[in-house]
């Protein structure tokens, strides 16, 4: 099996996913992901010409809600699990 994934790919994917691997972890995850992706590429062998992709196994369409107001959270419920908040909202560090 040829290498599909390298360390640079891992860093790029981790950035997209907002994850971080230490230098110590990165070799292991690169190797594991490469093995898994190599296995996955098997799907390339299936002949899918004229086959449409399935997003939903059930052919349900047009499911809507009426535009009716439901009860919202109280302030307390809103912040119940908040790691850090003040009167006006959820506090987050400087946006970069």
């Amino acid at each position, binding site marked *: 099996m040829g290498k599909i994934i390298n360390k640079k790919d891992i860093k790029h994917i981790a950035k997209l996913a907002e994850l971080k691997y230490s230098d110590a972890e990165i070799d292991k995850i690169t190797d*594991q992901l490469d093995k898994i992706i190599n296995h996955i590429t098997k*799907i390339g062998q299936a002949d*899918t010409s004229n086959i449409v992709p399935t997003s939903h196994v059930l052919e*349900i369409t047009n499911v809507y809600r009426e535009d009716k107001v439901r009860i919202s959270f109280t302030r307390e419920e809103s912040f*119940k699990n908040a*790691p850090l908040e003040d009167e006006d909202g959820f506090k987050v560090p400087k946006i970069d």
Partner: protein
Amino acid sequence: MSLINLGAYELNELIKKKEISVFEIAKAYVQRIDEVENDINAFISFDNDLVFSRAREIDKYIKDGNDILDFTGIPIAIKDNVCTKGIKTTCASKMLSNYVAVYDATVINKLNRHRFLMIGKANMDEFAMGSSNENSAFGVVRNPWNLDCVPGGSSGGPAASVAAFETACSLGSDTGGSIRQPASLCGIVGLKPTYGRVSRYGLVAFASSLDQIGPLTRNVKDSAALLEAIAGYDEYDSTSINTDVPNYKSFLNTDIKGMRIGIPKELMIKEIDCEVKSSVNNALRMLEKSGAIVEEVSLPNLEYALSVFYVIAPSEASSNLSRFDGVRYGYRNTKSRTIREMYKKTRAEGFGPEVKRRIMIGTYCLSSGYYDAYYDKAKRVRTLIINDFKKAFLEYDVLISPTSPTTAFKIGDRADDPLTMYLSDVCTIPVNLAGIPAISLPCGVSKNNLPIGIQVIGDILREDNVLKIASAIESEVKWKMNLQI
């Protein structure tokens, strides 16, 4: 005979006859949990005072002359990825270790209408990702048949708690086999309903197009009853099916003469243990004796199922798990100076390795330049698999296979090899991809005293056929339970 040995149905009969109180049931189970929970570790949240006070409330409710429904006062454990208002819902993750759910899942609302007795929140693989329950921030769950073995996963807690008589039944979730595989490894009955039969509202999503909530029980009758209690259309879940819920219990103990059973040869592969194979074949012979027609059938595209699953499930998961960022709830790295640093550290520290691995796989499969080759291609191959099943169900009422290629394996054995671990679900995954219902129930015990499970698969919304055959197997195939605890 102790109360804990009774199934939900039998308990219900006794409650109806006013022969026992719910408090007595609660006492029996709490005592059992006290005895074995140290060994099993099936629960993440369990509070005996809360169980007793709930039991008293239900007793009062009954005393007030209210209707006793199928699950009034019946102890049910809830997998910890199902939201329970005011109670911790952790998904066995450090990320949500202090998260208190702010609303009840639809299945909980439905069971509350029965006045069920919630016994506790059950352990699981983190965010339902795993096949051994070793990926839990709250420790491994042990198999009651052999404490050195895994209970299976991801619903390891729900399965082990039922098998260990810590609860009468439980609710789990099944994305690629997470109800059926642990049910098989723990010697109990696990049912994954048709996709959309049970509302997903309040089930913390792993892979939205595959997830279903279902019952884990000690017998097929309880399984049918619990499915009936939780099934039905939900206006809060756009993917739920808007058709009436049948009386599932009525399909039990019926004549199966003339029913056609297909055995997909792609699920009877060399990776299946000999003992597992022979137990399944033994059950098939029994079914033939009862008048069913058993034939081999080929679903050629099932060979791609595992690969398709490991594209679709991680892709959806990578997006579903984006919301865990430390902003509104859950774990947060508090030492970060910027938002990006906070995201990365929060998620790197809050998620376990398997969850991160799947987020990485999914992000890769959806990313620019790879989408067509992976995600889109996988969805097309998924169509091929669905078509294979459709064709098979033109000929057969149900399909049968082993649930798991092996019996329960030793804790630690596969922990470092994700691919081998993924193979544990090779027989259950195709069912989720096709959205069809399937049940796993015991069909024997191995020489080294571990249970073997058989899987019965039905067409879309044909839980009736699944239950008919499962009920026939249950009554014909004899095996002996021999727990280590």
